């Protein structure tokens, strides 16, 4: 025991050295892989080396950090220095979506996408100024602990747990989904296997050591992810502009993009109506939605339990504040680089892809077309491959022409092939059929060019050049393809994959711990078995962690279609459900139990109602609230027409008429035009208002509670909780 303690003190005293050596080792490993690549080792082996090596390191850290102490398990013994907690929070915060998708959103949305950059950074100001230091002084293990102490009992705790699970579970599912996507793309693993491999990667980091293990792996993961994110774009900036500071150099790219946009419109490669100039504001989101989104993301950031609980691990209140500053600094390194990724990629696509002859497109287009991520006139190599399979089966079943393929497949009961066939457009069907008929051994890449040429002709494009409107790029491609676009060796692409995995795993770890801790500490220990001994608490915590992880991996393996949209909802739900109760709990002594309980229910309830109503019950929602809808007259007429069409539809087309009606209704089912991603715009004020009014109408908190709040407000003195229990009960 004594030995273990000194060993640990040695670790904490030498953190700089330990992580310095780790970073050096990681860079050496990258160089090693680069050398192996030059020696001709195949890319796939290099990819496995990257992913295998990094996950092995995380697992070793996880096992070395195992613990049998409750305070180590829940809050890493409150010994994490501000600087390292900042890095861990950075990894905790930046998810697969930030790493892989953010630059892509900026590519697609231009200025309007910056709402995400602003929203996901500015929230940390609220964390530091309004919440983190006070929660640290309180000394809780979980966020619901604070609600229970401040608002007298388990009702508030229970509501807090519900909000926490609602916003964290979909989020963790999305992270595991992300690991599956990255692993299957880079390693060629089957998606489901990749999901469960990701699950193992997450569990080895968190199960044995809880918060302590997650903290030290997250620091290691931050280093991997930031090196992986910055390297390609720094190289690109050096190649193009001679200076390795992309954040400074992409101003020139912005100018070039603007010039090229005008040129494309002038020579007919793009339509002024559909091309969104990169630097022009409010083309996708109107002003209301742009600012509402920033607000919801910021307040949501300040309310997400897996972020707040990271500040429970610092040695002092002062360190908690410093740590938020370091967190934002480390997050900032990635977020203020993302716009340069987007600009460089856009300039590349606008100059070297759009306007090229359809038979001479760059090679990376086909790489991502193979993965269904780049579409030209809706055509991908993957889709063509499916079409070839369909034609072969149909020819075997006796089809004579392209029009006969569908009936043959239907008769043969080949539903999967029929679906791939139906996904192709008519001119492409003809090309595929004739090609396969002439040569059954043909592969998709052989007919790619003729297919897009046929589709271009059908679309009235007689120039033979690729136009802006014909090209669709998935958001994920921007970061993933940058190494390839710039002609960098595969080692860089492998590095990016390892970075994306680090981002997904680290966020999943933090979320999983937040959910499992809420269940084991708040539900089991505080509500079910308040006398449970330490050893049993830890066993329960670990069992629940594994169960939640398996449930999340299972949901991810079913590829839920709405998962990415649901993640963005987490911010609004957390903001409306938790922010008023947390902030007023510290800053307003008059706030009491009934105010908090009703405020949480009202704020969260409104938010959930708006999200679910506008997304899943759009027709009913619109009809109930049509007076508040931001719909234009034309949209209202269209709604009425579709509604009439649905009501008069014959039974066999009823389903498709309903789908058309529902799709349109989703665009007009709203209050004042606010998108459902910003539903906290309603939930927040309602939550605050209800909480304040009900608090004032009911009894003021006791003197003991007032003293308790005073204690939280001053950094000096001991924590108010120890070992997960209040030191003095508040009556």
């Amino acid at each position, binding site marked *: 025991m004594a030995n273990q303690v000194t060993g640990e003190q040695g670790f904490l005293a030498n953190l700089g050295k330990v992580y310095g050596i780790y970073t050096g080792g990681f860079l050496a490993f990258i160089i090693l892989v680069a050398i192996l690549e030059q020696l001709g080792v195949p890319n796939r082996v290099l990819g496995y080396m990257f992913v295998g090596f990094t996950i092995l390191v995380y697992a070793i850290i996880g096992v070395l950090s195992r613990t049998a102490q409750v305070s180590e398990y829940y809050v890493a013994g409150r010994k994490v220095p501000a600087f390292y907690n900042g890095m861990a929070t950075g990894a905790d915060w930046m998810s697969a979506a930030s790493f892989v998708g953010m630059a892509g959103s900026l590519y697609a949305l231009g200025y309007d996408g910056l709402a995400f950059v602003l929203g996901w950074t500015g929230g940390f100001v609220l964390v530091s100024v309004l919440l983190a230091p006070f929660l640290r002084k309180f000394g809780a293990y979980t966020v619901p602990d604070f609600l229970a102490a401040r608002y007298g009992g388990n009702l508030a705790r229970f509501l807090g747990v519900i909000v926490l699970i609602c916003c964290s579970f979909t989020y963790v599912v999305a992270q595991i989904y992300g690991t599956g996507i990255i692993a299957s793309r880079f390693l060629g693993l089957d998606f489901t296997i990749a999901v469960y491999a990701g699950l193992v990667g997450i569990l080895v980091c968190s199960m044995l050591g809880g918060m302590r293990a997650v903290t030290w792996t997250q620091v290691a993961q931050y280093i991997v992810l930031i090196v992986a994110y910055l390297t390609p774009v720094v190289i690109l900036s050096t190649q193009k502009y001679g200076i390795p500071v992309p954040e400074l150099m992409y101003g020139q790219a912005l100018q070039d993009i603007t010039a090229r946009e005008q040129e494309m419109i002038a020579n007919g490669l793009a339509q002024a109506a559909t091309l969104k100039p990169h630097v022009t504001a409010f083309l996708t989101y109107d002003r209301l939605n742009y600012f509402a989104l920033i607000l919801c993301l910021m307040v949501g950031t300040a309310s997400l339990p897996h972020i707040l609980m990271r500040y429970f691990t610092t040695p002092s*209140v002062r360190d908690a504040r410093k740590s*938020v500053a370091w967190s934002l600094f480390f997050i900032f390194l990635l977020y203020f680089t993302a716009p340069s990724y987007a600009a460089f990629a856009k300039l590349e696509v606008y100059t070297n892809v759009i306007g090229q002859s359809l038979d001479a497109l760059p090679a990376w287009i086909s790489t991502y077309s193979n993965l269904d991520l780049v579409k030209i006139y809706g055509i991908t190599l993957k889709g063509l491959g499916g079409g070839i399979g369909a034609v072969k089966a149909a020819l075997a079943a006796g089809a004579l022409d392209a029009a006969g393929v569908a009936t043959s497949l239907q008769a043969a009961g080949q539903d999967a092939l029929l679906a791939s066939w139906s996904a192709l457009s008519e001119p492409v069907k003809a090309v595929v059929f004739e090609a396969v008929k002439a040569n059954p051994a043909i592969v998709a890449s052989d007919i790619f060019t003729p297919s897009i040429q046929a589709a271009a002709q059908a679309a009235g494009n007689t120039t033979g050049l690729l136009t802006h409107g014909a090209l669709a790029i998935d958001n994920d491609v921007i970061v993933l393809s940058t190494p390839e676009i710039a002609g960098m060796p595969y080692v860089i692409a492998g590095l990016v994959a390892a970075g994306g995995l680090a981002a997904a795993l680290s966020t999943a770890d933090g979320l999983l711990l937040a959910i499992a801790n809420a269940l084991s500490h708040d539900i089991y220990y505080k509500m079910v078995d308040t006398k449970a001994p330490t050893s049993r608490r830890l066993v329960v915590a670990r069992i629940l962690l594994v169960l939640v992880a398996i449930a999340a991996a299972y949901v991810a393996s079913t590829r839920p279609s709405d998962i990415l949209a649901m993640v963005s909802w987490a911010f609004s739900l957390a903001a409306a459900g938790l922010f008023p109760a947390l902030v007023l709990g510290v800053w307003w002594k008059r706030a009491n139990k009934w105010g908090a309980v009703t405020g949480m229910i009202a704020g969260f309830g409104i938010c959930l109602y708006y999200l679910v109503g506008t997304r899943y019950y759009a027709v009913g929602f619109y009809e109930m609230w049509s007076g508040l809808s931001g719909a234009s007259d034309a949209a209202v007429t269209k709604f009425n027409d579709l509604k009439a069409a649905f009501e008069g539809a014959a039974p066999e087309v009823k389903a498709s008429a309903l789908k058309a009606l529902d799709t349109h209704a989703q665009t007009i089912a709203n209050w004042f035009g606010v998108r459902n991603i910003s539903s906290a715009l309603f939930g927040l004020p309602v939550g605050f208002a209800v909480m304040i009014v009900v608090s004032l109408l009911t009894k003021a908190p006791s003197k003991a509670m007032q003293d308790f709040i005073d204690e939280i407000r001053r950094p*000096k003195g001991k924590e108010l909780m120890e070992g997960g229990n209040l030191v003095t009960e508040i009556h």
Partner: protein
Amino acid sequence: MAKSNSEGHWAATSRLMYIALGIWAFFAFFIHFFVNSLNAIVIFGFPLGFWFAAQGSLIVFVALLFWFAKKQDDIDSEFGMAEED
């Protein structure tokens, strides 16, 4: 004395909170109302309105948090509310 100290500490803490949130609100929202006018100014190729949303505001947030941590430490020491080391 102890009581007034406590009140003084909270008053100073609250004042700092309002200042910090004021700066935050200015760079999170207010300045972006004028993006179209700011975009007319171009520095190193960056239209200024775009630059503030992409980078300027972020730099301010980071600096603000380090400044805030320092200021709150000063307040805690001044009123004898700082933690013992």
